[in-house]
């Protein structure tokens, strides 16, 4: 097992070969905000919230998908990074409908929590906010695309852990949506096992259990003992 020494925000840290910068930072108690990342699932580097500065690289790198290397010098926090992270959250708020007051996930939402952490008080960007569908055809669950931030955690947990691959992404750009079974209504899906893992990993109020606000949905994951979400920490 090769151990690499690197510095994170000027402090020397040790990481094992194959570990990501994010893992080593969190082990060391350095918090880097994330949204699409979830321990136990593959990383896609999509939300860009966890980007860090690495000396010698002209580009910002996603800490969740960047492996540690010997002598790496990482900066996880700077004025520029904070501003960029805030803009990312602002863009997510501007993209679809995220009115917290009328959301099932109010106060139990990772998007809301990250916005608060980063001190985002208002949105300067013009909102896009298209009217999107709510698919409530499933017996127990529903998806409100207006709340979705395209983190693809549902896609990954369904594929990697449940092995059903009911969820996938359709369309591109702003028209990208998570879909069940090639775009069929969720209730008609022949692959969905009804396990509810997608509900458990959704960081916002996009995928939820019918008839229950997230606050009263007890987050128990006996079948996912190794999945730990930020929302757990938020609600704890």
């Amino acid at each position, binding site marked *: 097992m090769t151990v690499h020494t690197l510095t994170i925000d000027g402090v020397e840290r040790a990481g094992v070969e194959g570990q990501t910068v994010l893992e080593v930072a969190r082990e060391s108690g350095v918090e880097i905000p994330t949204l699409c990342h979830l321990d136990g699932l593959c990383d896609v580097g999509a*939300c860009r919230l966890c980007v860090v500065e690495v000396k010698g690289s002209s580009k910002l790198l996603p800490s969740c998908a960047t492996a540690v290397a010997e002598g790496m010098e990482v900066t996880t926090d700077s004025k520029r990074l904070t501003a960029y992270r805030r*803009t990312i959250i602002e863009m997510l708020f501007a*993209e679809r409908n995220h009115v917290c007051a009328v959301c099932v996930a109010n106060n139990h939402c990772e998007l809301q929590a990250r916005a608060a952490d980063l001190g985002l008080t208002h949105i300067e*960007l013009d909102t896009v906010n298209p009217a999107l569908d709510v698919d409530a055809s499933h017996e127990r669950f529903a998806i409100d695309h207006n709340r979705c931030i395209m983190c693809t955690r549902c896609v990954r947990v369904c594929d990697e852990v449940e092995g059903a691959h009911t969820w996938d*992404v359709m369309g591109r750009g702003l028209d990208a949506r998570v879909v069940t079974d090639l775009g069929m209504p969720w209730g008609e899906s022949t692959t969905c096992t009804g396990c509810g893992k997608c509900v458990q990993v959704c960081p916002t109020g996009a995928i939820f259990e019918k008839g229950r606000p997230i606050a009263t949905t007890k987050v128990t994951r006996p079948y996912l003992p190794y999945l730990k979400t930020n929302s757990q920490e938020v609600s704890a």
Partner: protein
Amino acid sequence: MTDLVTTDGVPGAREADVDKPVRRSRRMTGPQVVGHARATAAVCQAAGCLSAQSDQVFEEITAQLIADGVTDVAVKRVGCLGLCAAGPLVEVPETGELFRQVSPDDVSDLVTRLKDAKPVETKPALEPFFSRQHRVVLENCGKVDPENIDDYVSRKGYRGLTRAVTELTPQQVIDEISKSGLRGRGGAGYPTGLKWATVAKQPSGEKYVVCNADEGDPGAFMDRSVLESDPYRVLEGMAIAAYAVGASHGYVYCRAEYPLAVQRLKAAIHRAEKAGYLGAAIAQSTFKFTVELRLGAGAFVCGEETALIASIQGGRGTPVPRPPFPAASGLRGKPTLINNVESFASVPVILREGGEAYAQVGVGKSRGTKVFALAGRIVNGGLIEVPLGIKLRDVIFDIGGGVPDGRKFKAVQTGGPSGGCIPEDLLDMSVDYESLLAAGSFMGSGGMIVMDDTSCMVDVARYFMDFCREESCGKCVPCRVGTTELHMMLTKITEGRATLADLVQLESVAAMVRDTSLCGLGQGAPNPVFSTLRYFRDEYLAHIVDHVCPAGVCALSGGESVA
């Protein structure tokens, strides 16, 4: 895929023809030539001229020559002759004549000229469009029949591959490429020799060579022309690369919007296999290499190498963070060499003539030649190849013939949606990777769109942002939402609804999108905004402060303020 190409690569034989009697080939041949042809009519059969019925021109000339019993004039299908704006083109190489805008309804003049054409000792002086060019990659374009492998071989084709596999070790091949100074012609300009060496260094086992033919920049058609005019050249370059890095299988990833290129590639792969230049025992050696064709389904982002790999694997064409780079872990997790069409097309010459000979041309760290597609407000629109280091002014005014209709040149856009606009003041700059970058633009794959004073630069920036917004895959937030937000801001400016605060916001969001996006599409998307702000800030201010579009393009709504 089957509706685009037939199994034997013969054009025209589609499903609708099933009922018709089977013919050996539907492809009409030229007149029967007895002995040595006194003159040849080389008829361009690339997409530009074909769209103006150059296939009928070919058939008409042939029919008239046969009817008149002429047996010493050949008629030949060739690839792109370059001067696309004046198509359909017919060249008579023996006399150096070039016939423009030949109509299939009226070829009698041309046929009369062909009948008494005599080879001349000294050909008429070429016009600057041709004389200022330096053709290396395009040496066969407009000379060879793109569907005839013997024609390619007769023009020194496959000498580079034969030399590589019979005389050189893979390391020597890589050294030759390194000596040539060739850099990635897809745009970023990464040293090709270094890339090959990285793939070659990976532990032996399954490796792949991939040709990126997913050309998607607006106004760019270099790769299409090369594939349509000289497909064997690209296959030869890929085979040499495969030998150098230790791969035995390759893919050409071509966009489906290029049906003619796909058809010719397919035919070329088939014929190269039959002739022993692909498949097992290439050039009587132990080296084997096979090539498969994959068609893109119309996504610009699939030109990004990791998205391209995902697409070849049958997945959704979305990029993944690098590292790991494809050279270490690419197609199916194996080391993969990805080069663009033009890079591969440069390789046969380097192996044939030597890397040092290739590096004779060029400037600084940019060696060799570059193919450009001239488009927009320019007299001689078409396909050109120039030595790197040539002055931009010479490209646009000598070769391109300047701006038509007596209008005033304003800017030239290079590098596609990730590129920038270069103003008149900088026309004396050298065309090379570093200079273009310093000028806030980008070499890119080689599109050059010339604009005159009827173009509004804010509108141009908005157009490219609209393109990126449409083509964003939607995976990462800064590109998915950021390009939309930037497009909304630019629209606001062109409609006269913006304030100076919006301009500040435009710049800060553009910087954020550039710095945080996952792949080159998002990172490059704000570039047209930065470059137009750098050189044409006054036009932005005219829209915002004076509510006037100096070029008269934008319909401004007037001075109402925006909430």
